[in-house]
């Protein structure tokens, strides 16, 4: 059995048939992730010239050692071991550390990890939850097996009749997504940016008042469903987080209100397989989940350490397990692209194309083993399934640290 590292569900029931030519139980996204093992792999390069791995590592170490304010960015597609090595490296060279959630689900993740919002495991969702709410998320596309493995279709300890009678699925989105088509009666379509008004409407419906926003009858219907729920699970995606922006406390209030009535838990829908792992590790180590700087020795966190500032103020950046030039907002990506970049990535990306030094690494889950945190915080360990001569992220980071 192999573990798929295609998304943050870390499916553990993958069966490889005939070496790596066929795979059972891999979703389309996972299969594409698996196939990418053979396409567009990176080679060690220094300033677009082919180099040896040792040479690339030496050059990367030299750039980082000479930098006054280095930045270590990414970590979402790295194992916990590599992330721990990264934190050690940051401490040693006085670098700023930044994960991919800093411009995404940072505030929500912080509230979940620090216990301000109650959370549960996906196994609890499967066994006990009778209402799953997908808000600003479309798991059918982003985490294809979410509904079939945990949130809607499987039979749980307490719900033997599952989706046919005992489970309800609610989708709240700005468009009729693939997931919304499965929620037929409980799909709520919102105009973009009105999630805060929708939250207030739900709270009014829960209080037995007439909601001011949306179709009153349908809002009362939703309020009744949430009131009757015995164990609810909310899966907020980036759609909700981006829409609420500074009003995240509204969501906290809604969850507190729902928790008074019934058990209601939140599991953030993070995309990459170990995004939560990095936030958890950094929280345990420094007390902050993101945007930490070790420039002056001690861990410092604040607006000046945010990715927006760090991308502009750093004088060298090491990018690992992420493709910031494609995913960051254009202004920040452009600022970052002008810096000397070191990219550690198994596959070619916009960042590796623009990087000064490219260090190829083994693909986690296939060529390298390790541990990672699933989106609900459960630790999943995996071994390599094929033999490769590539070095893992962890080994490369250890070598850079040693060279510095």
């Amino acid at each position, binding site marked *: 059995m192999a573990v798929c590292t295609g998304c943050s569900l870390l499916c553990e*029931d*993958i*069966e490889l048939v005939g070496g790596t030519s*066929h*795979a*059972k*139980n*891999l*979703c*389309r*996204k*996972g*299969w*594409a992730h698996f196939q990418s093992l053979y396409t567009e792999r990176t080679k060690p390069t220094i300033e677009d010239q082919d180099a040896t791995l040792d040479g690339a590592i030496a050059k990367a170490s030299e750039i980082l050692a000479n930098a006054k304010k280095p930045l270590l960015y990414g970590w979402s597609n790295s194992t916990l071991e590599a992330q721990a090595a990264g934190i050690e490296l940051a401490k040693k060279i006085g670098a700023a550390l930044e994960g991919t959630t800093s411009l995404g689900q940072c505030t929500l993740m912080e509230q979940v990890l620090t216990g301000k919002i109650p959370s549960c495991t996906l196994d609890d969702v*499967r066994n006990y939850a009778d209402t799953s709410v997908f808000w600003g998320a479309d798991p*059918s*596309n982003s985490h*294809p*097996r979410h*509904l*079939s*493995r*945990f949130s*809607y*279709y*499987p*039979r*749980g300890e307490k719900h033997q009749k599952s*989706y046919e009678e005992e489970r309800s699925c609610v989708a709240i989105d700005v468009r009729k997504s*693939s*997931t919304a*088509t*499965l929620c037929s009666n409980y799909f709520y379509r919102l105009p973009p940016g009105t999630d805060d008004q929708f939250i207030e409407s739900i709270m009014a419906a829960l209080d037995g008042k007439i909601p001011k926003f949306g179709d009153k009858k349908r809002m009362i219907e939703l309020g009744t469903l949430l009131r009757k729920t015995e164990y609810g699970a909310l899966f907020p995606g980036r759609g909700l987080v981006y829409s609420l922006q500074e009003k995240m406390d509204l969501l906290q209030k809604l969850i507190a209100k729902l928790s008074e009535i019934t058990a209601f838990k939140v599991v953030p829908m993070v995309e990459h397989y170990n995004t939560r792992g990095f936030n958890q590790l950094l929280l345990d180590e420094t007390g902050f989940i993101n945007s930490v700087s070790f420039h002056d020795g001690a861990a410092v966190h604040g607006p000046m350490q945010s990715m927006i500032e760090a991308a502009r103020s750093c004088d060298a950046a090491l990018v690992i397990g992420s493709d910031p030039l494609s995913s960051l907002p254009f202004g920040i990506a452009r600022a970052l692209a002008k810096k000397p970049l070191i990219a550690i990535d198994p596959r070619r990306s916009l960042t590796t194309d623009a990087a000064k030094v490219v260090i190829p690494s083994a693909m986690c889950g296939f060529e390298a083993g390790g541990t990672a945190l699933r989106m609900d915080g459960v630790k999943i360990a995996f071994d390599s399934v094929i033999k490769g001569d590539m070095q893992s992220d962890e080994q490369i980071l250890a070598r850079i640290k040693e060279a510095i």
Partner: protein
Amino acid sequence: MVGAMEIYQLLPKDACKECGYASCMALAVALLNREKKLEDCPALLNPKYAEKFKKLKELLAPLENASETGLIIHPEKCFGCGNCVVACPVNVAAEPTRCAVGLGPQGEKVILAVEDGVVKCMNLKECRRFGPNKVLCNACTVTCPSKAIEFV
């Protein structure tokens, strides 16, 4: 997916009964269920119905790929999410410790399984839609987010 009414509209509608059915509507249903072929209607072979015959051929072409239970899988649309694998009552009965709790099947007794990222159909005889005592189960189609599974 094509309906019996659409097929009926293109048939001669003369109730000649030469196909063995009492009406053209009955033949339309038989064509849909793939119990009869277009060539079984002698009137349709008449040159004056040539255009309608051509249209019917086109209309019924997708049905040729359908399985014995009328199941059609469009692999290009499938997400490989496994909703159908977990929802299918036959799969659940065959693997109560795996399919029923959301895991992928291990054995060979299941009807639906995800392989190489798309759903595959096997053991059709076990499907509740198979045979004379069929039940019009639609667990796999209603749970599909991309309409990759259809029944004739």
